[in-house]
């Protein structure tokens, strides 16, 4: 295999931007221009990008809907809650086992993730209303399974016909007495992307489950892991490492989660935020209501994992934990380094593009960097400005018609259960030593000058980018996979990981190194042309011996 073939980008970033916008009608070009940004990494200020705005009709976006963010992303990985979709059959069908969230319910634990529940609304329900059918469906689920909780998801027509799903939920909850029933107004047309759905889901989880169980949990160094969805087993690997360090995970939102984890989340002493986009507001609410401080962590990348573990240990400040974390890192790293060094000659100097999610386009740059690969363009599908530029822009975010109708919960300190986790002096000491709470600087400061940062990349732009900049690997989702690969460039899904994973933690890093090595160096990319296409002139002179 050839090592580090250097492909110089022939185009200046400004020219590429121009090229991307060239074909658009003027109105579209004006809008997209604000979402395509050349990272200038200025001294003190980060350039401003437009994000979390409406998708343009007819422009083939990667985005999904609010329902997908609510049911698919946040509630999808919950195994002991029955998630009932109120709507025509499709919405529930498409969210059925398609996100590769893994769960471990043991031999006889409750697990409804393999099931798909729907009220399968018919035209008569649209005309006469679907509340009765919904109540009956909740009853049938209760009679069949007696689950701890049943949740209800609104789909587009439900909002239009005005079914009061929250009232149905309340009534059924009172009727059962031993089953929590609540609902999400997550109609697909709300908001501008999945992101609105994350917010709607998390608000309801916080309102209806968090704080229900006040029992003291066993274990030391209790944390919540927020925004980790156990795609391809990421959560399992993180759990393994945390356990090895002696850190107790009270709850994970929401990979491999259980009802009781949500109910007990307020008993933790620190919230660790993985996916800033989908859940930072929950971390804030946990702090306001229960006094649990939060930090940003990242378990994607071996170095990032080590850094995050140290950060957790430093928070608790206990030398036993600090030593144990160091011991775990020292024990895990040799295996990681061995594989890294093995693949490095084949991956160094190669280039990547990442267009996913609200965090992964940032996190995965760490893993690529560990392999000597540079991310030459990246962007999010549904992130907000703070995920690009850092949290300091939050006070300046514009509230528009779309963000206004996504509820912000007003939370106050819980009169009985609020408990400061550290004294003001302790916090001050940590911060003076450089410790950073509630901080996230976004993707842009970590990207090179001149790199293209593009929000809500669409199919046309993706194809153009690949054509012009010829990356060695492109990362996005299933919808983008094959159009990129047809161009002869390997494509890695970083939503669902294709069939791979875990990629988090130490073992995950090893998996990722090997997977990317396999992809960028696969023989298949050399088979695009048949021999007679590569040298057609020979055919005229070839003579049989």
């Amino acid at each position, binding site marked *: 295999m050839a090592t580090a073939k250097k492909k110089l980008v022939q185009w200046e970033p400004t020219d590429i931007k121009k090229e991307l916008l060239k074909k658009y*009608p003027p109105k*579209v070009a004006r809008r997209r221009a604000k979402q395509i940004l050349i990272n200038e990494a200025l001294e003190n200020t980060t350039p401003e990008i437009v994000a979390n705005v409406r*998708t*343009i*009709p*007819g422009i*083939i*976006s990667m*985005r*999904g*809907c609010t*329902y*997908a963010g609510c049911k698919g992303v946040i509630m999808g990985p919950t195994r002991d809650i029955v998630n*009932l979709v109120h*709507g*025509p*059959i*499709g*919405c*529930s*069908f*498409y969210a059925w086992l*398609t996100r590769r969230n893994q769960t471990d319910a043991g031999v006889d634990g*409750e*697990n409804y993730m*393999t*099931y*798909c*529940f*729907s*009220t399968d*609304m*018919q*035209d008569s*329900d*649209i005309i006469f209303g679907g509340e009765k059918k*919904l109540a*009956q*469906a909740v*009853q*049938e689920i209760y*009679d*069949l399974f007696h689950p701890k909780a049943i949740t209800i998801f609104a789909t*587009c*027509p439900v909002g*239009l016909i005005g079914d009061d799903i929250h009232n149905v939920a309340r009534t059924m909850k009172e009727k059962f007495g031993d089953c929590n029933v609540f609902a999400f107004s997550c109609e*697909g*047309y*709300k908001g501008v992307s999945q992101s609105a759905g994350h917010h709607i889901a998390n608000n309801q989880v916080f309102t209806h489950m968090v704080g229900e169980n006040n029992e003291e949990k066993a274990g030391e160094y209790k944390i919540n892991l927020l925004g980790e969805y156990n795609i391809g087993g990421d959560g399992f690997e993180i759990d393994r490492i945390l356990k090895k360090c002696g850190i107790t995970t009270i709850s994970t939102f929401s990979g491999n989660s259980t009802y009781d984890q949500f109910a007990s989340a307020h008993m933790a002493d620190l919230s660790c935020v993985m996916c800033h986009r989908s859940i930072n507001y929950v971390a804030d609410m946990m702090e306001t209501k229960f006094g649990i401080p939060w930090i940003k962590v990242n378990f994607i990348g071996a170095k990032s994992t080590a850094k995050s573990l140290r950060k957790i240990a430093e928070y608790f400040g206990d030398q036993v934990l600090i030593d144990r974390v160091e011991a775990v890192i020292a024990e895990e790293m040799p295996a990681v380094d061995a594989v890294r060094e093995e693949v490095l000659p084949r991956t160094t100097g190669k280039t990547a593009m990442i267009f996913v999610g609200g965090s992964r386009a940032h996190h995965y740059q760490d893993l690529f960097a560990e392999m000597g690969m540079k991310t030459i363009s990246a962007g999010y599908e549904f992130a907000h400005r703070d995920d690009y530029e850092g949290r300091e822009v939050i006070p300046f975010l514009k509230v528009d*018609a*779309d963000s206004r109708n996504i509820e912000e919960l007003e939370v106050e300190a819980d009169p009985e259960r609020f408990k400061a986790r550290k004294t003001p002096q302790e916090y001050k000491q940590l911060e003076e030593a450089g410790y950073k709470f509630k901080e996230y600087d976004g993707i842009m400061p970590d990207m090179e000058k001149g790199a293209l940062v593009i929000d809500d990349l669409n*199919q046309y732009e993706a*194809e153009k980018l690949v054509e012009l900049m010829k990356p060695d690997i492109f990362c996005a989702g*299933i*919808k983008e996979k*094959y159009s*990129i690969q*047809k*161009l002869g460039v390997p494509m890695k899904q970083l939503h669902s990981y294709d069939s791979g994973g875990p990629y988090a933690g130490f073992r995950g890093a090893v998996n990722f190194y090997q997977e990317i090595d396999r992809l960028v160096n696969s023989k298949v990319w050399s088979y*695009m042309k048949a021999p007679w296409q590569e040298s057609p002139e020979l055919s005229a002179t070839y003579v049989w011996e």
Partner: protein
Amino acid sequence: MLLRHTPKEINERSAVTINPAKTCQPIGAMYAALGIHGCLPHSHGSQGCCAYHRSALTRHYKEPVSAATSSFTEGSSVFGGQANLLQAINNIFTVYNPEVIAVHTTCLSETIGDDLNQIFDKAHKEGTVPPGKTLVGAATPSYVGSHVTGFSNMVKAMADLAEPVGKKNGKVNVIPGWVEPSDMEEIKRLAKMVGAEITLFPDTSGVLNGPLSGEYSMFPQGGVTVAELKGCGDAIGTLALGEWCSADAARLLDTKYKVPCKILDMPFGLKATDRFIDALRIISGTVVPEEITYERGQMVDLISDMHQYFYHKKVAIYGDPDQLIAMTEFLVSIDMCPIHVVTGTPGKRFEKRIKELTADMPFEVNVRAKGDMFLLHQWIKNEPVDLLMGNTYGKYIARDEDIPFIRWGFPILDRQGHQYFPTVGYKGGLRMLEKILNALLDRKDRDDPEEKFELVL
């Protein structure tokens, strides 16, 4: 156990569907539209619908599936989606430049009451549709029927593009229904051998089974052209393969343009393929060549060679009505016993037809239209089977109940081959027989005690 909460005891449910054996109309419309040459399907609704349909089709075909959406916001949900669709049409022709935009509606735009024809008129008047380009529209409310209905509605809209010149063109319309690109290719091959000139629509071969060559074209070479569709009103006849997927379009051409139609079953298995070939030769006035008779003979030969392994084996199948009807007949014809048959698509005629086809079977059939896979699983728990056939979702039942499993239908998310190897026709029948045989014999080899384990089967 993956489906550990499914009880053996069956209680009728009236409101909740669990583990559906269907999905919603728009995805069918999107798949059908991909069978038009140079077509960009467009979903008039929230962007999530389009994202979900594209994802599902992409996972099944492992090919690019391009489609656009009107990306409804809360505002468009209140005031209607006209402005969004007009803007989309303009953007699509400017940026992607397809020959055709095939718009289907969704539960959202249907509930609002958007009228596609009126919006199309406005687009034409505003001049956003370049000359020679086509807009096709189909109403596909997700709360009626199933994905099969949506497919049928888009195919009907395609037939409605007919512009007969009044002179028969000697061609036969063949409407294949929701089958794989490989099946469509096979139908064309058979028609060519029979000597019948056909217009196959939709035709996703060459669209969703393309090569990897380092080049990407959003609009590959395959698909029925608009010119061909315009000509289908002058055809000498229409063969619709399947009542649920294809009959509406055929009847439209019959009533509107007097193109006589015959509704056949999908050509899965010996008998249905026999009827298809026979109808095709009669309508086109040709003689069936020896090669086809030879292929048929090979299939009969395989059935006779392996009959002992098929005989009276119980099968559970689920999927879509047209496919299940043909497959039920196929299984019965080789003396297998499809005892549980479930479709999520509504239609009492389905149950009646399955009962007729299985009337002489030594076991009574359980059949349900508008059923679900939860019910199917319960039936299997009460009366076990030797083989399970259906889309990928069946693997959970197959694993829990330890049943040999054949993937067939839509969607297949975890295996390959359906794009490339047909299951229609005699060649397809051979492949299906091989699949059934392998599943049964792999199980036999796994389960036989050592003293019974045999080299020759």
